[in-house]
């Protein structure tokens, strides 16, 4: 259809905008046009961000576990004893076998040991990530969560500082994680905001922000629509004649033209009809560009695990592989996996989930190496929240702070960033045993989502000024860059 969509946009903008009302589907392209005419960003290099969203709230307390004596004793008690005895705690030697051998801190730079004097290892299902950590490709960012400002236990219990609204609600916290804006429930995603700013820096017409997990807030933008595609690839519309099942209807002269006429711009009076037509039209435009690029590309040799996340990350790798055909020097991806909401049966469920996560992440990193972009692609995990330190029987409830992984050649790996929290149990007799606990088993974050995201965005090329726009609360926190990407 339109091989150079940006030229098409430029040429048709004048004609379209003259006649279009304020709410014309093309109206928003005024902003794109402005950005196209005066680009804010120019890049000679390539970078990609990949958000791996763990849906439901991953229990990071059982993902990164202390094996040092004092911390393990707290952990064992708080988790109601060993899983093998009906509690939720992993075995000490199993964790130590997956030790994260962190480098000592370098003076003047953040990142190094866990910060609480303890030693940590991974859940055994995460074994492939241990190698990545210990070979400096991966870092742990400790106890990240949504905050409006740094918050202590005393402040939380006194209600003396503003808190993110609807803490512990999946929906709201997922959104806050994906926007970095707990203060604005209607904000676009920070990935989407970056796409709005940087789209014009790309030479080509391909989609810049791509989701392999359907609609999400992370990529939602004011102008640049994310492309939501399936990990299995791109299907063409059968009725238009060039799909794998088009043969069923035979030639059907005129059919494709009639379909296109009904979804054409300017033929719908109703707002929702226009939106439906636009969604259909852009889906067709996008599959023509992306489908052609993928079809022409040689297959990857890296083997991905046969799992949902494996399939999503495999497609991300392929889309990175065709970045030149898409004309992209900056790409943002969203994948999602879960259910991590382990209220029940956590030992089995989380074990399976984490095994899938680690295998897929390891394969993805290998694929970026195969593509020669290992230092240019950074993947990072995110989740609704961590889970409660306390257990509910065979599972855990919604928590707040959680630990996350950042993975890529550019990461200053083999380090912890931030401070691992106390895992002591608050009891009625000793209600302040754990200063990091809200008082009911949810851990108060010591690193904010703003800081985590801004560090990634800054590496990606966002200027300091634009960072302050995307993360207006960032200045309330000590470090605006956590330095896990140099």
């Amino acid at each position, binding site marked *: 259809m339109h091989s150079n969509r940006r030229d098409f946009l430029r040429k048709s903008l004048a004609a379209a905008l003259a006649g279009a009302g304020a709410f014309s589907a093309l109206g928003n392209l005024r902003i794109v046009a402005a950005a196209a005419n005066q680009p804010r960003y120019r890049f000679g290099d390539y970078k990609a961000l990949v958000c791996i969203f763990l849906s439901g709230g991953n229990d990071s307390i059982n993902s990164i576990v202390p094996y040092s004596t004092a911390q393990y004793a707290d952990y064992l008690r708080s988790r109601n004893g060993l899983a093998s005895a009906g509690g939720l705690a992993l075995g000490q030697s199993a964790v130590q076998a997956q030790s994260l051998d962190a480098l000592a801190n370098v003076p003047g730079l953040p990142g190094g040991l866990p910060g609480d004097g303890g030693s940590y290892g991974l859940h055994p299902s995460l074994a492939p990530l241990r190698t990545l950590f210990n070979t400096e490709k991966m870092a742990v960012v400790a106890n990240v969560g949504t905050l409006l400002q740094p918050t202590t236990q005393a402040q939380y219990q006194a209600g003396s500082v503003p808190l993110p609204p609807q803490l512990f609600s999946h929906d709201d916290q997922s959104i806050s994680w994906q926007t970095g804006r707990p203060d604005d429930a209607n904000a676009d995603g920070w990935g989407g905001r970056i796409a709005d700013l940087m789209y014009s820096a790309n030479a080509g017409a391909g989609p810049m922000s791509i989701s392999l997990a359907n609609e999400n807030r992370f990529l939602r933008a004011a102008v640049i629509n994310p492309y939501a*595609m399936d990990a299995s690839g791109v299907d063409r519309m059968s009725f238009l004649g060039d799909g794998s099942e088009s043969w*069923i209807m035979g030639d059907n002269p005129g059919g494709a033209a009639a379909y296109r006429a009904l979804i054409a711009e300017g033929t719908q009076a109703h707002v929702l009809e226009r939106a439906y037509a636009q969604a259909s039209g852009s889906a067709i435009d996008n599959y023509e560009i992306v489908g052609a690029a993928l079809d022409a590309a040689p297959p990857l040799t890296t083997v991905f695990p046969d799992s949902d996340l494996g399939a999503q990350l495999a497609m991300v790798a392929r889309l990175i592989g065709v970045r030149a055909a898409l004309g992209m020097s900056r790409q943002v991806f969203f994948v999602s996996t879960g259910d991590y909401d382990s209220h029940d049966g956590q030992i089995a469920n989380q074990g399976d989930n984490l095994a899938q996560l680690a295998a897929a992440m390891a394969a993805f990193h290998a694929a970026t190496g195969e593509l020669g972009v290992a230092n240019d692609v950074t993947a990072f995990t995110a989740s609704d929240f961590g889970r409660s330190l306390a257990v509910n029987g065979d599972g855990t409830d919604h928590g707040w702070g959680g630990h996350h992984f950042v993975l890529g050649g550019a990461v200053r790996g083999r380090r912890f960033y931030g401070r691992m929290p106390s895992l002591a149990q608050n009891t009625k007799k000793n209600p302040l045993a754990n200063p990091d606990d809200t008082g009911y088993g949810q851990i108060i974050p010591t690193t904010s989502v703003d800081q985590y995201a801004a560090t990634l965005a800054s590496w990606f090329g966002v200027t300091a000024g634009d960072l302050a726009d995307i993360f207006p609360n960032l200045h309330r926190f000590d470090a605006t860059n956590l330095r896990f990407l140099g």
Partner: protein
Amino acid sequence: MRSNRRWAVGLLSGIVLSATALAQTPGHRPDAQFAHGFESVDQGPTRDADAARFLAQATFGPTTSSIARVRTLGYRGWLDEQFAMPVSTSEPYLDWVAGLPDNNDVTDDARLEIWAINAIGLPDPSRGNAVPADALRQRVAYALSQIFVVSNGNGTLNYQPWALASYQDMLAARAFGNFSDLLRSVTLHPAMGIYLSMLQNQKEDEERNIHPDENFAREVLQLFSVGLVRLNPDGSEIVQGGVPVPSYSQATVRGFAAVFTGWNWSNAGCGPNTYTCCNEETYFWCGPSNRDEAPWQQPMQPVEAYHDSLNTKQLLVYTGAALPGGVLPAGGSAQADLDAALANIVRHPNVGPFIARRLIQNLVTSNPSAGYIRRVAQAFDDNGQGVRGDMKAVLRAVLLDVEARYGHWQRADTFGKLREPLLKFTHLWRAMDARSANRRVGNLSTWPYLEERIGQAPLRSPTVFNFFKPDYSRPGEVRSAGLRSPEFQILSDTLAVGTPNRLFYEVFCYYTGSDRCWDSDAPDTLQMNLARDAPLAASDPAALLDRYNLLFLSGQMSPFMRARLLQQLQQLTANDYGSALGRVRVQNALYLIVNSPEYSIQK
């Protein structure tokens, strides 16, 4: 009660305004019907198109016979007839499949078969080929399944078609009763007990650092009844100091979590020869062994030893709450605490506007006015005989409100909603007299799974938040205009192609007499009766479009769309297609209509 004259004047000015706008985009709107829209609801419908439009809201799709029925009985009469229809259930079908000599594997796909039979109104082979006639009830049960969500997406429920069929039957049975009974049945159904982990929930144990599971407590408030923020009767958020006021706190969630402790499998049928009965000793390992055993379909029952009776419990606080300060005193049994807690929820002033908006959005329009929500919420608060939560009164209010019946004239360019993908299929099957040879239904058992092909399937939501959220607003013009568009949340680029492709397959493969595709003539393939309309399509394609305008677009097809479709149908000639011309024209008309913007938006 508003006078006919007052809203008639308002309606007229609405039509004048849209006539002005018509001049700007000629032919792209339905023709204004000046003669209509003034009769009161009790005198309507006076046109087949209005009957069809009503049925598009109240059922899985209009049919010729149901249009005639609504014309005969009127809106109210049809609702009354529907309220009295016997319930079509789904669990017996699974038993029937299990007893067949072959193809007797009862998977979750078998559950989708009976869902389709009941939704479409097909002869049910498990019940002597009786044809389900409770069209409204089935449609409302589907709407309720998107509010009180359980799903086979949960690992355990994925292998429990009997439990999910039973849950569906419970929603259908409760759809026309009282909301408090509906909420109670939802709370105690074992499918929900599994899905939101209330089953075998236990009271706190400080020694072992165990707190009660908060999953159901949180979601019953957030998603099933009250919502996160306090609401005015018209559904708008109550705001103080510029910030919405929360309906409850984390302490409230913990209070309800403590209430919902001590509930376990029903002991129906338990015993040494079947499965372990649930009591204090067996609490965590009792219950059914096989999928078709009774406890999967019976309400949960309490085991007091695991119920928290020691603590007071903070419940909802609101003006008029029966409990002082919303605090439930300690010492109650599991049943007594549950009764008090559910009553505390149901009497909260949020419930009326909360449920009103969701039902309106599910059946009628994504952007109801404040007045419409308020009127429906009022019907929830009091059905006219002093009863709170009467679902019949609520449904009458939703479907007979002036905005439901005439909103498409009042706000011609924004009223309505994007039809869900699944409803396009049921509509096609109903309108085109689909039948299968062996009375089973294989069409929903796709690979990849239906919910991956078209974005949704009954009781297969990815999370408890349903396939799409009530507040979703598509970025771009929709969002700039401050409108909501929930169903657009599953219109990804993949699904914007996937659903049309599945519809393509239905239209071009699955018709009576076809062997075009590998499964066209499989005994369980639901085939549409394209031959019925083929003669008309061949001889008078304009008349075919008139028929489909009524059946699919409720008479609202724009002149532009009609002209363009006619052009395409006329382009297909007997030279090219011979005796197949009629069928090919029908296929083109059906495909182009069901994937068109005008049909896709139900107005």
